[in-house]
């Protein structure tokens, strides 16, 4: 486990200088253009919709068969037959629609979804993503993640840059079972926004107070910064 040696308590101590989970979600939201259809995974991604301003029309698709999903209003009573992929009660906005599973995955696999925003356990330099595991810390299962990661036009990962104990999550190769290979376009972490082009990654922006040297130390592959 070579990446255990890369623990970096220094960054964890400076957590107040990095982006919070909400700030990561807000940053993702600010990059989503009007008119896009977006599939949202569990974890930090679930926070993204609330940061989309009302005037910007972004449609959220959920794999269990809804397009135009919105949060349940405070006055609305939950309907057990109307849930999102995380089984939470939700509502549908005017212009939304329901459909069955195979059509839902036709949308996802067929490239009709502009963007997927997912969490991840590990990301490799080649854009492989691992977001489930079968060991004793088993997190759920594969669900629709393989289809989403393989099928959407753009795949952005929203996650903390390292694990709770400081292990690298951005690695030369993933050690967990892959969800999909060579699919990640961007990573939005608490420290930086990174974009992939083949095996090359460059920094789009850094969280306030985070230095290039710090970001490099917690990233298992080279990252380029414009002008440095």
């Amino acid at each position, binding site marked *: 486990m070579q990446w255990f040696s890369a623990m970096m308590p220094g960054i964890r101590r400076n957590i107040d200088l990095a982006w919070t989970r909400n700030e990561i979600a807000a940053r993702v939201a600010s990059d989503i253009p009007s008119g896009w259809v977006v599939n949202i995974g569990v974890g930090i991604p679930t926070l993204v919709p609330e940061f989309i301003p009302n005037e910007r029309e972004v449609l959220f698709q959920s794999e269990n068969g809804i397009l135009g999903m919105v949060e349940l209003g405070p006055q609305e009573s939950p309907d057990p037959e109307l849930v999102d992929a995380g089984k939470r009660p939700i509502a549908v906005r005017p212009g939304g629609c329901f459909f*069955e599973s195979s059509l839902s995955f036709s949308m996802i696999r067929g490239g009709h979804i502009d963007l997927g925003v997912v969490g991840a356990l590990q990301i490799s330099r080649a854009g492989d993503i691992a977001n489930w595991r079968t060991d004793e810390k*088993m997190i759920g299962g594969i669900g629709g993640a393989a289809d989403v990661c393989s099928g959407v036009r753009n795949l952005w990962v929203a996650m903390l840059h390292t694990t709770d104990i400081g292990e690298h999550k951005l690695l030369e190769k993933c050690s967990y079972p892959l969800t999909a290979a060579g699919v990640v376009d961007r990573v939005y972490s608490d420290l930086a926004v990174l974009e992939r082009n083949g095996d090359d990654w460059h920094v789009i922006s850094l969280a306030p107070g985070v230095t290039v040297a710090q970001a490099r130390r917690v990233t298992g592959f080279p990252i380029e910064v414009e002008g440095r």
Partner: protein
Amino acid sequence: MSYVRDAITIAIGGFGGAGFPEELVSALEKRGCRDLVIVSNNASRFENLINSGAVSRIICSFPFGGASVTLRKSIEDAGVELQLIPQGTLSECLRAAGSGLGGVLTRVGLGTSFAKDHQVVNVDGTDFLVEPPLTADLAFVHAERADRWGNLSMRGTARNFNLVMAMAAATTVAEANQVVELGQISPDRCDVPGIFVDAVVQCNDARDSKEY
């Protein structure tokens, strides 16, 4: 429950609780069974069946959330085999079985452990996994409304796997909150045509029936 036998494969609709045939599954628990293969998107609603030793294998995409410690233990204690299939492949393989197709050609899973032991076919220069069709002996599905020909309509996100499971199974039993006269389900608003459904039962406890 006269369709149920030991060692059959039962496809059970629903995504979490939405569109889940709760009363049929409850009746299945009461009946008692051995060596069932369950096909369902999740495993979390089969804890009673698993604990009673009725289940030998579960084919699903997302067995349970990370917090389901007791379910995890039940599955291990009962020696239940868990077979994970990506959700889109699961639904498409059920559809293929119900559509007389020989399987599904997908790129989902290529380069991952899901490609293990799979035949690969190259179509016009691109590789695809061949995922075989997934059939069932029996399907249990849930609907808001049903008529005596088996036409079903759902509300909200309750459609989910119910259509493809009804298609894939040799015999399909539907439970419905309301059983209505022929013609009361609009021909434009039939989510599962009756041709895919063999029997309909009225729910005793139509707890989630809403204005519709």
